[in-house]
């Protein structure tokens, strides 16, 4: 049985998404993505130099990888919408990792502005994956207005503090049918595995890979962890609250009545 993730009709086999910021050089990004067999990579539009022939970051993204443009730097919905449109016009496709941050101190997303931008962009045909603070009602509204998935933060970007929002993420997973992808805060492969065990559809990792001693090896480690976590999720005995109906324990009552 196939266990692919489907986003906007596209089949994605590898559930490790990788961000391309913060790496020590560009060629290593290619190696990382290839070694991890990643199929979705985010690239910040602010870093794409389309004019530069010799050193365009897009040249380092393997062809089998979907580029998801990151709107990083957008401080409000309007700026994010402009960045997304520029990205499309520049030929970077229509997958958008929507990031609206008006707080440079903590880098926490602005859920309200994110919602506004999602609505506009989804209507324009973008595949929008919004980065957000895990709030159930906002997540539901994001889906209502057309988000293809929801990307709650595990902890602030770059903090490597792990999945501090696990309880809230669990609620999103339970209540929302669309993919929940933890983005930001994952510092170690074990945390990525944990997200997958919770039932996340995928995880997005950047800092932990980019700043590792050997980013390529670290990417491999994350890849294994994500696979392990997913396998565990699919095969573990469910704990209470996730009861499965396959082998009822009180079935005998009916026959003895």
């Amino acid at each position: 049985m196939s266990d692919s993730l489907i986003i906007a009709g596209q089949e994605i086999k590898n559930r490790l998404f990788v961000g391309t910021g913060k790496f020590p050089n560009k060629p290593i990004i290619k190696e990382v993505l290839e070694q991890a067999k990643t199929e979705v990579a985010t690239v910040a539009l602010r870093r794409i130099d389309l004019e530069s022939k010799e050193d365009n970051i897009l040249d380092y993204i393997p062809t089998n990888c979907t580029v998801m443009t990151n709107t990083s730097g957008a401080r409000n919905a309007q700026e994010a919408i402009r960045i997304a449109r520029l990205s499309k016009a520049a030929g970077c496709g229509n997958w958008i990792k929507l990031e609206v941050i008006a707080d440079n101190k903590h880098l926490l997303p602005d859920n309200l502005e994110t919602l506004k931008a999602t609505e506009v962009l989804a209507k324009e045909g973008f595949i929008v994956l919004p980065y957000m603070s895990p709030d159930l009602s906002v997540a539901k509204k994001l889906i209502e207005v057309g988000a293809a998935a929801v990307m709650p933060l595990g902890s602030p970007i770059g903090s490597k503090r792990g999945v501090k929002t696990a309880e809230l993420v669990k609620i999103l997973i339970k209540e929302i049918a669309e993919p929940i992808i933890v983005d930001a805060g994952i510092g170690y492969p074990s945390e990525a595995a944990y997200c997958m065990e919770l039932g996340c559809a995928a995880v997005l990792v950047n800092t932990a890979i980019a700043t590792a001693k050997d980013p390529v090896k670290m990417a491999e480690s994350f890849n294994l962890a994500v696979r392990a976590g997913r396998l565990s999720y699919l095969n573990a005995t469910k704990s209470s609250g996730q009861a499965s109906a396959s082998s009822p324990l009180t079935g005998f009552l009916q026959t003895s009545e």
Partner: protein
Amino acid sequence: MSFYNIYHKYKNCSFEELPNQELTKLLSLEAEKSLEAMAQKAKTLTLQNFGKTISLYTPLYLSNYCENECLYCGFNANNKIPRRKLKIDELKKEAKFIAKTGLQHILILTGESKKLSPLSYIKESVKILNKLFSSISIEIYPLSQTEYKELIAAGVDGLTIYQEVYSQSEYKKLHPAGPKQDYQFRLDAPERAARAGIRTINIGSLLGLAPWRKEAFFMLKHAEYLQNKYPEIEMSISLPRLRPQFNNFQTPYEVSDKNIVQIITAARIFMPRLGITLSTRENSQLRNNLIKLGITKMSAGSTTAVGGHTLEKTYIKNSLQFEISDKRDVSQIKIMLLKEGYQPVLKDWVGALQNE
């Protein structure tokens, strides 16, 4: 409320009497003993927040007309240097020269003469530079909020303005004439730009003009004040150290390399997401070593003369604002960064976003 209120409250305190234990501890003489531990912590925080990348930019001097008499500056109105302002075709030539290096972030500078390099001229220049660069910052005389708005609308996204020296008494001595004598108008400039909607703000204290511990304290409190009040701003600081100029101004308070290291690491620990800029005022060896400690932005291929890349050599030689120390060009800096394990970032903003 302005940062001046905070400055005013503490200006007469000795360093030991200043508030904010965490910051004063980091900047104290005592902390010099723990410099290595501070450096280790600063390195980790920098990696987490900025990764292994360094942004590059270069200055472009538009004009050296100046009405001020800052004692430490080569453009001081009393200095007999050839003065000029780039004509539009000269600007285009200079800009094209820089664009060829691949740099996308540019910092335009002028002396202070609203008469000879007026806002209209700066706006016109910005419109030309917009076509070649993805980010334009200004380091010019302080403006009103409305004037900042006009420049932002023209395509400026960053402001650099150094208070030069936070100590108001030293400021008074060092600025004997000209509009720059207005200490508070300069101090409040970044706040006016923030209100006008600027994206990035870079402030600084010209190290060597007053005892550095207190200067660094006020500079960082200023950065913190602005970041807290305007969280949408990308805040950064610069650590310019006095360099030799034409009038042989003697540095009144020496600041050692060790002191610079302490300021950088203290700044990083105090504000983990703060950008820290290092200019070519410092020598290449020190710059190479400081990268790992918390620097996030460097200038490269710099000149401090109007039209310093393309005008006549004899003119350039006699009209430098100050002498730079790290004379490496952009490609040499790029090679050095890659060798040190850092990615040179030439583009980090979406050009002309405002004008779409």
